[in-house]
């Protein structure tokens, strides 16, 4: 990919100019954060005084900045959480047995269903101020980003190369040194990639969490999402267009100014020992490495770093190995498993009791039925997205030039929050009298389909050229070619895309099955609507039941369907 200005040009640039650019850029960034941050944290208001959203498009940069700041704060917390949770799960065999299944479940819980719970919690935590709402929104974004990142970090820790581990043990690196020199660096590439993808997904939740009604009360936070909400209420298409444009610009800016440089920087953390053919590039990263100031500051700070390293190393000296008796260990493990099972059983009984005494078991059957309806939508969506996008993806993937050109576009589309498009689609449904029962499938697909396309491209690219040539050589054509070459070749990539798309679709159902335009509200029958309605009126038992049921569907689907496909992909279609 071409970047502008080219790295060569920058290298020719005198270091002085690069330095000026870096200093200037840093000052602008600091000023912007201070300006926006003041709005977020200093203007405390009682919740009765809901901040007005001014629909003048000139306010859009400010709103966009507020939303972006929320995203970055959530990202900071996600990173912190990831490092701690992933580290503990990878280091302690006991903790691992609780933390990893828990992560699996948390990942399957529809984040949007959470909102009601967290909003009330956070408002109670910060009485009489907007900070509670702010925290709830950040928390919603956080929960949409964090699980992926944590899994990636945990997996990296568990798959560290044996000899590297032995080297660090033998050379007596302290726990802190191991963490900073081995564990975090080797996880960096995967972690950043996952963070970037989750960050893209996070915009959806910004939009969904800034303007919500919980417990019969409307809450609004200044931001892009609430701007869109206000525009919908005012039935103002032009304003919506402006918001859309702003969103696109923000995504591009964050990509260029934040993710690209990080990805370019992280290339040195690749574990493969040979130089990569196409290292990622970023003009900003080149600028930063050309300038002298960052390096000078680094040198100047290095004694402090050294001191910190020494102190933290003192606190985390390597422990002397002591061989535990394996038999006793086994006994302990068995006991641990039993205690765990009892605990899980107790939780189930408690939930059953709660539901039984409040809404009754007939309601459970009702939600089960609604869940099946939503499941039907998800399945239909997957089938349609596959039928439409896989051939296109494969065509793109087989054409390297096209792929290089289009992949960033697809990435952008995947990051673009689908709920910004919802109003247009809603309007379309209203005008054409398309039932939302079917239309919601399209709404859910707006976000989810890109994962299928994205992975189809990647899968097609992974099919070796000589296999394709062989297929052409023996005269495979049409359906035969698909059956013998393409489907097996892209299968595992498709499964990855399918899992992500299906997870995204379930989550989206909460906002896609019930949509509004001005005063018109379209409502589809399904579990998403059930949860959204329960949330709006603050019906706790129904919220719990709805979320529980949806989680059950997602977990069940993962266990019974996707995991088997993964296995099949591993066993049979491994290239």
């Amino acid at each position: 990919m071409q970047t502008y200005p080219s790295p060569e040009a920058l290298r020719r640039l005198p270091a002085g100019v690069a330095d000026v650019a870096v200093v200037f850029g840093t000052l602008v960034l600091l000023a912007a954060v201070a300006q926006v941050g003041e709005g977020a944290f200093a203007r405390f208001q009682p919740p009765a005084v809901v901040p007005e959203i001014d629909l003048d498009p000139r306010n859009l940069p400010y709103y966009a900045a507020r939303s972006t700041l929320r995203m970055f704060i959530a990202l900071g917390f996600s990173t912190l959480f990831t490092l701690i949770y992933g580290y503990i799960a990878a280091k302690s065999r006991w903790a691992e047995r609780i933390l990893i299944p828990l992560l699996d479940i948390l990942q399957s819980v529809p984040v949007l269903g959470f909102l009601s719970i967290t909003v009330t919690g956070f408002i109670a935590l910060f009485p009489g101020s907007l900070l509670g709402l702010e925290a709830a929104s950040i928390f919603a974004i956080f929960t949409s980003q964090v699980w992926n990142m944590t899994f990636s970090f945990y997996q990296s820790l568990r798959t560290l190369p044996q000899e590297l581990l032995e080297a660090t043990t033998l050379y007596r690196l302290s726990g802190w040194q191991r963490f900073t020199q081995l564990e975090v660096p080797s996880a960096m590439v995967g972690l950043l990639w996952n963070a970037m993808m989750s960050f893209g997904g996070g915009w959806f939740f910004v939009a969904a969490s800034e303007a919500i009604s919980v417990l019969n009360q409307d809450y609004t936070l200044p931001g892009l999402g609430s701007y869109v909400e206000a525009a919908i209420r005012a039935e103002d298409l032009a304003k919506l267009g402006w918001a859309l444009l702003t969103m696109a610009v923000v995504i591009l800016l964050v990509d260029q100014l934040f993710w690209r440089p990080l990805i370019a920087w992280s290339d040195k953390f690749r574990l493969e020992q040979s130089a990569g053919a196409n290292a990622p590039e970023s003009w900003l990263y080149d600028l930063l490495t050309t300038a002298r100031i960052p390096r000078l500051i680094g040198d100047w700070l290095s004694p402090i770093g050294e001191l910190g390293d020494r102190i933290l190393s003192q606190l985390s000296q390597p422990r002397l190995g002591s061989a535990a008796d394996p038999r006793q260990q086994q006994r302990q493990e068995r006991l641990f498993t039993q205690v765990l099972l009892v605990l899980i059983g107790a939780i189930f009984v408690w939930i059953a009791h709660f539901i039984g005494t409040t809404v009754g078991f007939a309601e459970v059957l009702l939600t089960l039925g609604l869940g099946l309806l939503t499941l039907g939508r998800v399945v239909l969506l997957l089938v349609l997205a596959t039928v439409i996008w896989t051939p296109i993806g494969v065509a793109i993937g087989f054409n390297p030039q096209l792929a290089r050109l289009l992949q960033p576009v697809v990435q952008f589309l995947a990051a673009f929050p689908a709920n910004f498009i919802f109003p247009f689609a809603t309007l379309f449904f209203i005008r054409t009298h398309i039932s939302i029962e079917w239309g919601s499938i399209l709404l859910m697909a707006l976000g989810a389909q890109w994962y299928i396309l994205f992975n189809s491209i990647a899968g097609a690219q992974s099919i070796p050229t000589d296999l394709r040539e062989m297929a052409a050589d023996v005269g495979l054509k049409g359906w035969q070619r698909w059956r013998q070459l393409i489907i097996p070749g892209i299968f595992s990539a498709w499964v990855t895309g399918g899992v992500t798309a299906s997870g995204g679709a379930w989550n989206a159902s909460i906002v896609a099955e019930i949509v509004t335009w001005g005063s018109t509200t379209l409502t589809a029958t399904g579990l998403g609507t059930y949860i959204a309605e329960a949330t709006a009126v603050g019906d706790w038992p129904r919220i719990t039941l709805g979320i529980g049921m949806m989680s059950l569907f997602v977990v069940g689907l993962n266990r019974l369907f996707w995991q088997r496909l993964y296995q099949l992909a591993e066993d049979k279609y491994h290239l």
Partner: protein
Amino acid sequence: MNLDRNSALIQVEEVYKRFPLPEGKGEFTVLSNISLEVRAGEVVALLGRSGSGKSTLLRIMAGLIPPSQGQVLSNGKPLRGANPDVAMVFQSFALLPWLTVQENVELGLQARGIPKKERRQRALKAIDLVGLDGFESAYPKELSGGMKQRVGFARAFVLEPKVLFMDEPFSALDVLTAENLRGEIDDLWNAGSFPSQSILIVTHNIEEAVFLADRVVILGSNPGRIRGEVKIDLPRPHDRLDPRFKSLVDYIYTIMTNPEIEVTTEMAVQPPVKEQVSSPYAYPLPYARVGGISGLLELIVEQPEGQVDIAELAERLRLSVDDLLPILDAAVLLGFAEVLQGEVHLTEIGRDFATTTILRSKDLFRQQLLERVPVFKSILQTLEEKRSHSMRGEFFLDLWDEHFPHAEAERQFATAIDWGRYAELFEYDALEERLYLAETTPEPVGVGQTPRE
């Protein structure tokens, strides 16, 4: 260095190592009753076949894994945790790709809390010693394999350990690079400027062991045990052209190819621990494909007198001992070849097998399998007893699992399938993972396989 010559730096006392088999099926003994000493001023080579537990022993001595029984003394004191007197050079280099050469070399010093300035100086000296000056700020990615391993050496040297451990340090390099680096390390040692007092090197390259070591300790397999040691009583540097060099290499080859031979040295040799083997699934099959076996036999049969020196054979085929020995083992197990004094020669049947048509060689192979490898009889019997004349592959895998770690059991299974298929004793459906008894009259096997005589 001369002062404490002959004092023991590391002592291994009656060490056993067992790993649990999967699903609590008991334990797998990797090392059995190992006693060993590394003294100041000597180079010791640990030689053994793949899977004999060389790396495991090295890691126990380095304090990276605890022994199941017995103890390791370092400087006379029982070892707990990583051995501070030891630095290690790894087969795969084990460099951190995100650190420069300099930072990689400084890693161990940093862990010891040595101030930055001193770290820098000492690292530069070590980098200089391995001939890498000018590359201090390069990243490992930018270096060739040989240069990466030089960084590995520098990282170990900089700590000035009492004993330098190397686990097959040259086996990931191409032949010429390995030769070059090996020579340089040997030069450093002979010049007396080596940064450690002793060297312990793990290898399965016999020439390398004889070239570098003062003492070659030979490990036997299943379970790993010390078969004895061979003193390399040559003046340093060991001259490859010296006839004594050649005879030592030949002698060690003979030992390595004959598990029964007793190793004669001044040291008392421990009698090999013979396990009582009852199940046919407990005898390990050498991991060799039929194609490899017949290829080797065809090569030997073309030799004048139908025999060949093993060291020469390995050299000619550019095969490491580890790749060659299992094939030889298989040929011996099947009664196609015999090994005597470092020479392989074919038996009558072996000669027949190597020269006849494919159909007849299949017959010969089947006959030898059933006669000499009990596990095939057992498999056949199981299949015959079933009414469907078929059985899940997992059933047999489980039987192997009881005697080997799972990865090894899978290799045993794969080998048995390969041999049994070739001999047309049974068929295997990889999708269903089932074994089927072959039809009693094997079908004609396709083009080019009809008798030509």
